[in-house]
């Protein structure tokens, strides 16, 4: 067991810190558009966007450990994201790097790295959420085109995306529901696509329904072989690893919650002198620390080349509990003032705590509900029978 970094990794850490000192001045707003444009160009020039991708496709060819160092330093300074194309970098790009044709790589990867436009993900359907492999969106091949008819839902940022990674059923008679699924790359401006935003309970509209009515997709935009869509998706989602950056962000949330607790009172005394409040904050700290160390244990497994069985589900469950409980705890600290919504003079911190207490489903439900994570652990790790 050893938690020290090698001299090369320490040198890399110093390089990242020096870059941040120079390019992320104290007090710099993260919402300043010209600054963000410059930032994107600079991190792209460093090849820190797509840092772990192979150099041949324009990535940084960075090692797993360097990636950990990079993300850790970036999140410590609350740096803007490395790259602007969130889903493109998280799973669309890795899937194209792995399954794409040479032409697809050349067409899409540079744009993803440059953040030229957004990608969205067309997986869930009204009748197939957790049971994703049962998806029904129809797709028939006609010559050198696929014709798509059906509906997707919970498609995050569909209204602002130029492209979609889409799962469709090309073979309804396939022996297993996992076969017969095909992955397509679809331009959102194609005739027949209708996007209707859905408002969520915290008041924002980040996701949408997407309807497909005789949408024609060129065969050259198929990713992987026909019927290979499930594999393409599963391996792409697997690269959405629970990362060290996520843990640093959770520690930051905890600090904010501790600061809030210091400002609040309970029965006339500071909330931080209440034993239940103190214990709850320490419990959050233990869970976040556990996430960090669980992540390092998984990383060791990966570095040693040992097979992964769904260990990331462990951290996803911890994260889900934390998101829900921390959001709720903030409102509990606020007491009666926690009942206000944004817009009132009485609302603390502009209503951010109320928003946080209602906005957790984005993280907790997206990418697999907690019960799905429990199924993964029970079936893949504990080898209990499938239900």
């Amino acid at each position, binding site marked *: 067991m*050893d938690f020290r970094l090698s001299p090369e990794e320490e040198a890399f850490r110093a390089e990242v810190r020096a870059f941040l000192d120079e390019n992320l001045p104290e007090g710099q707003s993260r919402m300043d558009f010209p600054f963000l444009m410059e930032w994107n160009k600079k991190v792209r020039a460093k090849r820190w966007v797509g840092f772990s991708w192979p150099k041949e496709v324009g990535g940084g060819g960075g090692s797993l450990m360097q990636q950990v160092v990079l993300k850790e330093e970036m999140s410590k300074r609350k740096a803007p994201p490395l790259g602007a194309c969130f889903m493109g970098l998280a799973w669309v790009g890795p899937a194209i790097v792995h399954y794409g044709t040479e032409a697809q790589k050349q067409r899409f990867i540079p744009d993803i790295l440059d953040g030229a436009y957004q990608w969205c993900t067309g997986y869930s359907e009204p009748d197939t959420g957790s049971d994703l492999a049962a998806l029904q969106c129809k797709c028939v091949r006609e010559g050198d085109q696929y014709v798509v008819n059906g509906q997707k839902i919970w498609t995050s940022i569909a209204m602002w995306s130029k492209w979609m990674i889409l799962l469709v059923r090309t073979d309804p008679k396939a022996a297993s529901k996992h076969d017969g699924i095909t992955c397509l790359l679809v331009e959102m401006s194609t005739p027949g696509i209708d996007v209707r935003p859905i408002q969520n309970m915290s008041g924002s509209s980040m996701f949408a329904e997407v309807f497909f009515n005789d949408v024609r997709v060129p065969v050259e935009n198929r990713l992987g072989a026909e019927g290979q869509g499930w594999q393409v998706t599963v391996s792409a989602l697997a690269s959405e690893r629970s990362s060290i950056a996520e843990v640093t962000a959770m520690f930051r949330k905890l600090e904010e919650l501790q600061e809030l607790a210091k400002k609040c009172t309970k029965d006339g005394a500071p909330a931080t002198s209440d034993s239940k409040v*103190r214990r709850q904050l320490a*419990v959050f700290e*233990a869970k976040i620390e556990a996430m960090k*160390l669980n992540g390092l244990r998984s990383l060791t497994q990966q570095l040693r080349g040992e097979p992964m069985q769904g260990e990331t589900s462990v951290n996803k469950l911890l994260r889900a509990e934390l998101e829900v409980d921390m959001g709720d705890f903030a409102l509990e600290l606020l007491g009666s003032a926690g009942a206000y919504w944004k817009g009132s003079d009485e609302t603390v911190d502009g209503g951010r705590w109320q928003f946080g207490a209602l906005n957790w489903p984005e993280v907790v439900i997206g990418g697999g509900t907690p019960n799905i994570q429990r199924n993964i*652990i029970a079936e893949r790790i504990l080898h209990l029978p499938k239900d």
Partner: protein
Amino acid sequence: MPEVRAVEVQVDFGFSEEQELLRSEVRKLLDARAPLEQVRKTMETGPGYEPDLWRELAELGWLGLTIPEGFGGAGLGWVDLVVLLQETGRSLFPSPLISTTLAASAILDAGTEEQKQRWLPSLADGSRIGTLALLEASDSLAPTGIALLGKADGDAFVLSGQKKFVADAGAANLFVVAFRTGGGPQDLALGVLDAGAPGVTASHSATIDATKRLGTLSLDEARIPKSALLGEPGKAWPAIERLLDRGAIAVTAELTGAADAALSLTVQYAKDRIQFGAPIGKYQGVKHPLAEMYVDLESTKSLLYYAAWAVAESPSEVPRSASLAKAYGTDAFTRIGIDGVQLHGAVGYTAEYDIQLYLKRAKWARPAFGDSDFHYERVACLGGL
């Protein structure tokens, strides 16, 4: 996916080949000599452990695992000790191993060269059983919880009173005793006391977990010579606090082994037991609590391994890490014990089935070296709240 490049690994959060070898050797011996049928017999005996097997452990070098070779030990560290204790925990192995290891750790941490030569070899070779006598009737782990006053008398301190909740008190022949030397909150001392010294009586009884013994050390004008003090009188609190941390780590190590076994037993039962035409492990009402147990157990292990690593490599981090591990682990194991029995249904409540033994271990482990309220409060304090 992009290929993961082979790199020179430095950060390594796993066990070494040597540690895995140690684990399999311990497992082999305990499977052969201390299966649960045997443990159930041993736990009913007076001493609560098997002296023959104890000597065998000594010969294998496991009693002095963390004692340096110069003092008759194996010279290994706390991560290695965690491996050993996870396996003894898995077997619910009844023995004064943790007690003796902690007594040795106190001497190693605060003792002089001469004191180490005097006591450590006998703790490593099994001829002496050691234990810590820290707590009193207050059951408080704070410095003010120690009230027993040592009166200076020539070249010794004279003690009259009781130390409570002393693990393996009736089996030990060496006690590391915490006592008070003055009125200041931290005017404390640690001394080594022989069980055969005049005015010393000790006894223990089986606890709710019959594989563990707790008792009382009674002192009537017992003398601890100044040559048997570990460190300077009046300045022992930091050393006592380090012992509390190590005790918490040791108990959590056994706890993770025991919880692992409880989870395996329950998973196996869920695969074998058929109800409504299917193994009950097929139903989410059963498989989800099992998944939760796994999450808690793995998280406890991660917290524990870091704390054990920090003992040698990053001592300033030990208080927070040990408290996080014990706090999280204690609550997790409480849940695992209860759910383990509950998921077994009625048979889980029978004396015949083994799962209940682990529930009892959880009840024993909760207060040992501080419960979760104590350790979470400590984490809050260390974090500046």
